[in-house]
């Protein structure tokens, strides 16, 4: 037994082909796709008491238009996937938090044979996939997933591949530098959503919302329907970060004002929020003196952006993309560590769950290919660069050999653009252009690359996207 194994040797050790960290929309879709691609021995680890992730508290409709061609609520959308996971008998562990992620030393490669398996169905029998894998990949390091739960205690799972599907969390007040006291009555919009929609409690009666992200807009309507008075939604930027349909359905329908280029500059009240002071901001987002207005309220909700939850990715030392706060991935959604894939909001924050499911299914299929020895090591990763007007792309690199006939590139723009062209360039030369009536940072865009186009370029060094007139 190698030294790296000894550290973990005192706890129960299991072996699986694939661990999926997170049982929200990304984890569920990834697990289903991996099982459909032939991976028998996998497990989903979920921190909450139920599968479904954040969808459980998103009781509004509008989910699944792309996937199911009908409008579902969050719990219904999650329900479709949860049902499938149960039908397929994909093992999952609830109330289980992953606290560490690492790799074995190569000399540990044979050690796991004696250890138990998470999936009883597979018994102790070595799967065919495992044989192929060991031949084709030699002594490639395995992943060590250290998890903990009240029921099972602390244990380590040794896995051939890992899919990161941990989702994201909300930017808290501390990250916003709002001056003022710290009274009760300040919540992130998602926390308030959980209180209202899952616990049936009201956080307050007179509400100001800072940030016009989708959760903030949805909560403006939700609080109004529950009898609260939403006095204002303030947005720092000159445009809303939320979907247009949410501005129409959640604010306009109820006459809730949205003030752009406005922020909260003070919170008043010692025990409980009594008022917030809002002010206009200049083009550098700095408050303009003299524009302050005090708005009496008992609650301030913050909907100021989401941050992918990548503490575990950090433990593996994954290279990150500063524009997304998610790991850098290639065309297979594989991170810098072979066999570790990422999908959903931990990779980059999505606005539609349909795209999360789609992306996660791709990660599931690619993880399956990896496990079955059908995903060659990346050799020539061509970087996808962001040109004018583009904030980021996922993936950030493409290995033409490993891509399918087509490759989807998701991206966001850095500002609101009307009637512009989206241009794809290879080695700096435009190869395709598409007219866009409207581009906004709040709405994720996508473009499809064709393998034939990429192969047609001699000495391809760079793919780039840009917004031009």
């Amino acid at each position: 037994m190698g030294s790296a194994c000894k550290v973990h040797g005192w706890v129960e050790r299991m072996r699986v082909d694939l661990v999926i960290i997170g049982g929200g929309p990304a984890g569920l879709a990834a697990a289903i796709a991996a099982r459909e691609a032939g991976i028998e021995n996998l497990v989903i680890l979920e921190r909450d008491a139920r599968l479904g992730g954040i969808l459980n508290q998103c009781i509004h409709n509008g989910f699944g238009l792309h996937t199911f061609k009908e409008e579902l609520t969050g719990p219904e959308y999650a329900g479709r996937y949860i049902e499938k996971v149960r039908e397929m008998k994909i093992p999952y562990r609830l109330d289980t938090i992953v606290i560490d992620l690492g790799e074995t030393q190569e000399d540990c490669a044979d050690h796991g044979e004696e250890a138990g398996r998470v999936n009883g169905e597979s018994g102790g029998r070595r799967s065919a996939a495992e044989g192929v894998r060991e031949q084709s990949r030699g002594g490639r390091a395995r992943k060590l997933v250290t998890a903990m739960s009240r029921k099972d205690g602390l244990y380590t799972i040794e896995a051939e591949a890992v899919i990161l599907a941990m989702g994201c969390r909300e930017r808290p007040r501390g990250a916003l530098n709002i001056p003022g006291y710290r009274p009760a009555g300040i919540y992130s919009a998602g926390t308030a959503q959980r209180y209202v929609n899952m616990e049936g409690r009201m956080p307050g009666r007179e509400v100001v919302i800072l940030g016009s992200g989708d959760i903030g807009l949805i909560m403006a309507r939700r609080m109004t329907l529950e009898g609260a008075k939403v006095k204002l939604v303030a947005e720092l930027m000159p445009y809303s970060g939320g979907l247009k349909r949410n501005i129409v359905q959640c604010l306009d329908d109820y006459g809730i004002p949205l003030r752009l280029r406005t922020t909260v500059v003070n919170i008043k009240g010692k025990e409980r929020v009594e008022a917030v002071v809002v002010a206009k901001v200049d083009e550098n987002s700095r408050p303009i003196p003299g524009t302050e207005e005090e708005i009496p309220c008992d609650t301030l909700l913050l909907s100021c952006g989401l941050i992918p939850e990548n503490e575990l990715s950090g433990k593996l030392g994954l290279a990150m993309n500063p524009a997304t706060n998610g790991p850098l991935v290639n065309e297979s959604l594989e991170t810098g560590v072979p066999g570790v894939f990422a999908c959903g909001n931990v990779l980059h924050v999505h606005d539609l769950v349909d795209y999360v499911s789609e992306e996660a299914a791709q990660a599931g299929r690619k993880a399956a290919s990896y496990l079955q020895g059908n995903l060659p090591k990346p050799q020539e990763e061509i970087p996808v660069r962001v040109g004018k007007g583009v904030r980021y792309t996922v993936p950030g690199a493409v290995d033409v050999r490993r891509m399918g006939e087509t490759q989807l590139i998701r991206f966001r723009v850095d500002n609101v653009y009307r009637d512009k062209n989206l241009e794809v360039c290879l080695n700096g030369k435009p190869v395709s252009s598409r007219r866009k009536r409207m581009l906004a940072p709040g709405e994720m865009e996508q473009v499809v690359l064709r393998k034939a186009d990429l192969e047609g370029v001699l000495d391809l060094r760079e793919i780039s996207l840009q917004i031009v007139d």
Partner: protein
Amino acid sequence: METILSPEKKELICIGCPLGCNVAVELEDGQITAITGNTCPRGADYVRKELTDPKRIVTSLVRVKGGELAVVPVKTVSDIPKGQVMDCIRELKAVELNAPVSMGDVAVKNVCGTGVDVVVTANVEKGTSCIEE
């Protein structure tokens, strides 16, 4: 949201899907004569409906007794007139279901006389909720 550009021209944002198309409508004597800017037929349907008979799907909660959660989410099976949304919410406030409840269970039949049922959109098993009252 509707922007009135002139008595004969209005611009609406379609809410049929997340694209949120800006759809321009031309009117003559209150009759729609042209619809432009929509990327799909749903956009035209939406503005026609929005200008004549606006409707919304309502999602909210009803109380649950003896469940692992104290509330369960519900929705109207189809959209109801926009003007009746608050009435629908009031009617739902008076409802209490007994656990267990399952997705698809009817919470209220024919809510506010709209002919539309309100159904449960999640499962709540029997148990003790975290709220002790």
